[in-house]
């Protein structure tokens, strides 16, 4: 049987069972915990970026700096364009309330000149340039501004953080692989005598390697499950605390598909550990006669 996870009882006895007491499962548990938490954060950031982006994708504002008198003409020009699905002027009271946050009671003074702001939603695929030109023709000096442009720095930051999380996940995977290589080499050193006897009797490298691979795979899987369970608990607590926010946003930061990815991480770690261990063992064994 070539699958290293399936060995006979006799083969299992060849290497004394250390079970999950060694450093490998503990290391893998910690790595998996960090990986799942960082992965969840990355997915949440990516989802948040998508929600923000889809919310402002087709939203624009007409800004008229010198007063509300020109607002109806600008709104009418926008409304006349094909693909415009909604035109709504931001009520002056809302603008004053916003200004009040910055200026204090002075924001409510009647002689404070207020710009007019009109929100415009376009159908997907509509050319925003044509709408903007029509508005500027009707009201010279009016500015037609994309919300996405305004939020681009935020979206860029969210994308950067998502990539950072992905990079961290990969780095942790690499660190886990390195730890497994060290553990595999350590196991070979510990059982040098047994391996020499086996080689001397005619065991192939594959026969020797699979005795160790199985144990490392079990340790990695055990560590992965423990780490993932701990990470799952932490994520559940954080999501529970964030339930109000997620309800307001209308979308949970981590969906079911994302959970599948997160559940796959410990399995991927175990698989990675198994393959890396096998490669490291065979390489180390080839260095011997």
């Amino acid at each position, binding site marked *: 049987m070539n699958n290293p996870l399936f060995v006979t009882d006799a083969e299992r*006895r060849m290497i004394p069972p250390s079970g999950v007491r060694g450093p490998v499962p503990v290391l893998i548990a910690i790595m998996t915990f960090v990986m799942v938490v960082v992965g969840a954060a990355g997915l949440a950031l990516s989802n948040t970026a998508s929600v923000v982006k889809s919310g402002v994708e087709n939203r624009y504002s007409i800004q008229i700096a010198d007063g509300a008198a020109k607002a109806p003409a600008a709104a009418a020009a926008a409304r006349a364009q094909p693909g415009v699905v909604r035109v709504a002027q931001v009520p002056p009271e809302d603008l004053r309330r916003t200004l009040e946050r910055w200026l204090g009671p002075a924001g409510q003074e009647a002689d404070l000149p207020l710009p007019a702001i009109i929100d415009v939603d376009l159908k997907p695929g509509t050319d925003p340039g044509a709408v903007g030109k029509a508005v500027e023709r009707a009201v010279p000096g009016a500015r037609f501004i994309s919300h996405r442009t305004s939020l681009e720095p935020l979206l860029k930051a969210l994308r950067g953080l998502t990539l950072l999380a992905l990079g961290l996940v990969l780095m942790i995977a690499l660190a886990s692989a390195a730890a497994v290589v060290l553990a595999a080499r350590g196991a070979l050193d510990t059982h040098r005598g047994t391996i020499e006897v086996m080689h*001397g009797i005619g065991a192939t490298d594959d026969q020797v390697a699979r005795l160790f691979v199985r144990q490392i795979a079990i340790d990695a899987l055990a560590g992965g499950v423990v780490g993932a369970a701990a990470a799952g608990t932490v994520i559940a607590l954080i999501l529970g605390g964030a339930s109000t926010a997620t309800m307001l946003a209308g979308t949970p930061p981590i969906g079911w598909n994302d959970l599948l990815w997160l559940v796959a991480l410990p399995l991927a770690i175990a698989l990675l550990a198994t393959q890396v261990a096998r490669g490291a063992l065979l390489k180390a064994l080839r260095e011997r006669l």
Partner: protein
Amino acid sequence: MAGTIVEFDRVGLRYGTGAEVLRDLDFRLGEGGFYFLTGPSGAGKTSLLKLLYLAQRPTRGRMTLFGEELAHAPRDAMPAFRRRIGVVFQDFRLIRHLSAFDNVALPLRIAGKSEEEIEGPVREMLAWVGLADRASARPPTLSGGEQQRVAIARAVIAHPDLIIADEPTGNVDAAMAERILHLLTAMNRLGTTVIVATHDVGLIAATPAAQLIRLEKGVLVDPTGALRHPPRQPGAGRAAP
């Protein structure tokens, strides 16, 4: 003699950058022969045994085992040849955490035999070496003599073509030494080539049909040339006194 099982052609061996521990070894061992390897301590007996059981490659010369030139053979080819050799190490090299049964069964398991095929022969072999009631004992709980018998049982269990034994009677009493020699000669009569490294003059004297391979300071002592040009019949003459 049916054929040549081991052929050394100007074989030399050195460890690292040190001086050669074996020099210009030129000899042939016939298939089905019984050989004693002798010589003073430091003569290179252990190094020659390592070459023979494929734990070491010569640094020069040609070494042919079972008709195949193995000095430069690919590493992957070695396990198949090692399975044809049974080795009794002077320090036994039993696996400490395995029972006597599992230690003896090891060559059969490595050769891919099923547990059904292993059980009977291993029990029989343990009974033969007088350890039937110690099958589940682990080496640290066995005496030196018992460990040696387990090592011998492990070496012969798979009926190898070549048995190499390093001081196989070094830790046993006279009666057990006689039984071990009887086992080795019985294996030899069945066609197995046997090479025994020993200082035990009594053992050599008890096996008059055997040939001697004598090493001194890494060089083969073969004044009659009998090892370079073996006679047609096994045991036709001793190569060196």
